[in-house]
């Protein structure tokens, strides 16, 4: 069940890529930065979601709403920055980037710790087995 489901996000990623390439309305250069912010927001939500799954605190509604509000705020910042002539969207890029690396760090630590735990558990099992044999 789990093995089958793991393909679902990947399939959706490819599907999304296809949709994006089929929707060939060319984005004006002026809005390229809004698009990049949206990409960052989506990546951030994805990594945050994976982290939440690993922490057993995942909530789909919170993740999706987080994605949309974050993207909206970032877009608003970019728009404001355009109006006053300051690159405010860099603040959003910075925040998203920071969160990306934070989440990635959590995930990495969780996986490494998990592997270590498993190994120690196996070793202990082996030791126990040896002890049992000796005894």
């Amino acid at each position, binding site marked *: 069940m789990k093995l089958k489901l793991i393909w679902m996000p990947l399939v959706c990623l490819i599907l999304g*890529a296809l949709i994006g390439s089929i929707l060939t309305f060319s984005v004006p250069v002026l809005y390229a930065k809004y698009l990049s912010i949206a990409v960052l927001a989506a990546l951030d939500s994805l990594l945050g979601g994976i982290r939440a799954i690993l922490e057993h605190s995942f909530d789909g509604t919170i993740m999706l709403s987080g994605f949309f509000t974050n993207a909206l705020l970032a877009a608003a910042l970019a728009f404001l920055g355009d109006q006053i002539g300051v690159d405010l969207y860099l603040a959003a890029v910075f925040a998203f980037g920071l969160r990306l690396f934070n989440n990635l760090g959590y995930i990495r630590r969780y996986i490494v710790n998990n592997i270590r735990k498993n190994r120690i558990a196996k070793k202990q099992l082996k030791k126990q087995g040896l002890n049992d044999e000796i005894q």
Partner: protein
Amino acid sequence: MAKNSRIIKVYISISVICLILGALLTMSIHANNSSETTANTEQQKNATLIELIDNLEQESADLETKVEEIRAYIATASEEHGTNPEMVARLQKELEILKFLADQTEVTGEGIAITLDDNVAGAEAAKGTLSKEDYFPENYIVHDSDLRYLLNGVAYLAEAISINNQRLVNTSDIRCVGTVIMVNSTRLAPPYEIKLIGPSNLLEAALLASDQYIYLKNKDMPLKISKSENLVLPAYTSTISTTVLKSAETHIPKTENLQTTADHKNTGTASDQ
């Protein structure tokens, strides 16, 4: 079972985010690529422009060398024939006269200038008073035939004629091309200024007596006549081409023959006297 449905929900939400991410990624890649391609087309445009400039420079260089060649040829030719500068001068003078007679030079002299314009005021007034069926805009503009008939009445007295700086020669045409009049294959626009060099008093009298003048005056066309002591008419600049025209004499005399016949004529006239 409850756990399973929760897991499915998790995957669905993650999948939605993945879908959005994929679409956004490809779109931004698209946008980036398209901006690059526009830069490329601009570069290509510049490249073609540069090529164009290079070609034109090459062409002008070629022409300059040609000019130099021709100058060198002239120098050698004048050296070869420079032994008789008197003849060269005479030939040049003859050439000037022939050009003058062939309307190839700017000329000046006394004459009259006729300015004929479209009857704009009349057209405006007619538009206001006449109904749509009775209003004919062609009644208020100058037609090619107006100019032709006007010239017919006076041209026999003129020694040189021009319309809006287009010199009339024996092959000139006055034609109607849509909304404009064409003279010497050049499009002219109103007001039309006809300059005639000739005895100005006779020209004026002939004009005032011509039917076309009376006709145009009755139509209230704006027509002005001014006499001048020194009108300046431009040279005829269009091409002169003869494709089938030949001299009717049985043989075209060679230059040496011309010389002898001229001599013969001279002696003839001398003997006559």
